[in-house]
């Protein structure tokens, strides 16, 4: 952390709240479509307003978020509250002026991209061309133009002719940060496919297949489930990509398909708890992961409101906790430690006392600063690097 940049950072407050999606009903299939948002992606800023894409299981929406901090005052024919004045009472003319007002943030829906997904949408990703984006569900990936809502192109379709032959589903997809023709998608079997849209209209055949070979003698009932990739993220540089499976985070060099270049264990102590985690469905939890701005540190969440950071250069890692009871505001977070087995040291937490209902699935790192956002079940925490 650069000590020269010792500007004080302000606190974050709620900027705007709006309802993005409403619950809907698919009458034809007698299904309720939840309003729950699965993914949000910001568009690069082009003007004063901010734009974002948000999606639930079936529909993607483009929202415009704009600020208003001044309003015109001094109309000739209208009172300040909007009522029209009696024209006969107007004796002088004045030029209306803009005066500052309390900040008002407005969110308005600009585009609605609907009816293109049979299965649940799990990912959206904006292309570096800033014109198109992709949306992925369990079996298909579609390409959209941000301006066109009545049409989308199917670019990946892994649905087998006979559903009995289904062996894997798409779990996440992302466009390359610099090459507008390249995207990747991950699967429930732990593979990542890189596709080039220049090769063909339908990218069913991958250009690269990233898969770590597995020792067949280690295979168990849980192997495939825990290898399912829950998130894939390109580094800012575009040279690497990171994947999150149930127990680890892996960094892949795009130039090397046969194994990751780095592997970080998030909570290896859960390997001896897989039976219970399967029974309570926690083994299917989908954790996300993220890079810091310089691609030197990666972060992901865990249980008990713990989250983990791995420094790729120093190879050091740290476990921190997002909870109000254990951390006073403006104090440095204390590193946590889980005791896997044997005698528990003071301040360590044993695996059996972890709260598996307190899961941190979503984390985000500021693109330039050492500021992170960590989401627990009911709260959002914002942490900043200590500034001297």
């Amino acid at each position, binding site marked *: 952390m650069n000590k020269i940049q010792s500007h004080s950072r302000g606190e974050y407050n709620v900027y705007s709240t709006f309802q993005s999606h409403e619950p809907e009903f698919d009458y034809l299939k007698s*299904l*309720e479509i*939840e309003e729950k948002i699965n993914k949000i992606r910001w568009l690069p800023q082009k003007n004063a307003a901010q734009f974002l894409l948000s999606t639930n299981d079936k529909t993607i929406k483009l929202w415009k978020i704009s600020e208003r901090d001044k309003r015109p005052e001094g109309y000739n024919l209208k009172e300040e509250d909007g009522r029209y004045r009696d024209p006969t009472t107007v004796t002088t003319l004045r030029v209306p002026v803009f005066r500052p007002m309390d900040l008002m943030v407005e969110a308005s829906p600009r585009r609605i991209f609907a009816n293109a997904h049979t*299965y649940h949408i799990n990912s959206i990703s904006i292309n570096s061309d800033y014109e198109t984006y992709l949306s992925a569900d*369990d079996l298909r990936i579609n390409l959209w133009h941000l301006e066109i809502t009545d049409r989308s192109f199917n670019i990946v379709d892994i649905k087998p002719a006979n559903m009995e032959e289904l062996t894997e589903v798409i779990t996440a997809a992302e466009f390359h940060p610099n090459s507008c023709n390249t995207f990747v998608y991950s699967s429930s079997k732990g593979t990542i496919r890189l596709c080039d849209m220049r090769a063909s209209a339908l990218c069913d055949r991958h250009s690269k297949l990233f898969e770590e070979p597995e020792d067949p003698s280690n295979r168990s009932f849980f192997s*495939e489930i825990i290898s399912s990739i829950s998130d894939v993220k390109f580094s800012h540089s575009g040279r690497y990509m990171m994947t999150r499976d149930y127990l680890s985070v892996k960094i892949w060099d795009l130039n090397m398909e046969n194994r990751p270049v780095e592997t970080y264990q998030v909570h290896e102590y859960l390997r001896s708890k*897989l039976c219970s985690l399967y029974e309570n469905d926690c083994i299917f939890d989908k954790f996300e992961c993220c890079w810091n701005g310089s691609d030197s540190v990666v972060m992901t969440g865990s249980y008990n409101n713990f989250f983990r950071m791995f420094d790729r250069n120093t190879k*050091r890692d740290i476990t921190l906790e997002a909870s109000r009871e254990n951390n006073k505001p403006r104090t440095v977070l204390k590193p946590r430690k889980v*005791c*896997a087995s044997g005698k528990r040291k003071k301040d360590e937490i044993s695996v059996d006392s972890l709260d598996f209902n307190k899961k941190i699935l979503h984390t985000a790192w500021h693109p330039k600063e050492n500021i992170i956002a960590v989401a627990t079940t009911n709260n959002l925490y914002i942490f900043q690097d200590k500034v001297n």
Partner: protein
Amino acid sequence: MPTPVTQNPARTILEEMEDKVTSPEKAEEAKLKARYPHLGQKPGGSDFLRKRLQKGQKYFDSGDYNMAKAKMKNKQLPTAAPDKTEVTGDHIPTPQDLPQRKPSLVTSKLAG
């Protein structure tokens, strides 16, 4: 450097041999199979995946939903004033003018 995870206390050779045979993952698998003997062999099979595709789908009955919506609408209609004077002769009565009908002594089975 991160502190290493607490090491296991001194182990017997037998324990170490058992470890080579049963990894923690395989031990967990054995536990699961003991609890659910009918569990399928392939967790990645199509049945499993198809269940996953359907996970979270909530079925609803459009008939029930519309009936409930209609009931809400009825509750919001203004109720007629309870004490209306008897209206006869002078003008054609409107529904609002009529006094409330006295409830039947026997409730109809059809009443909702």
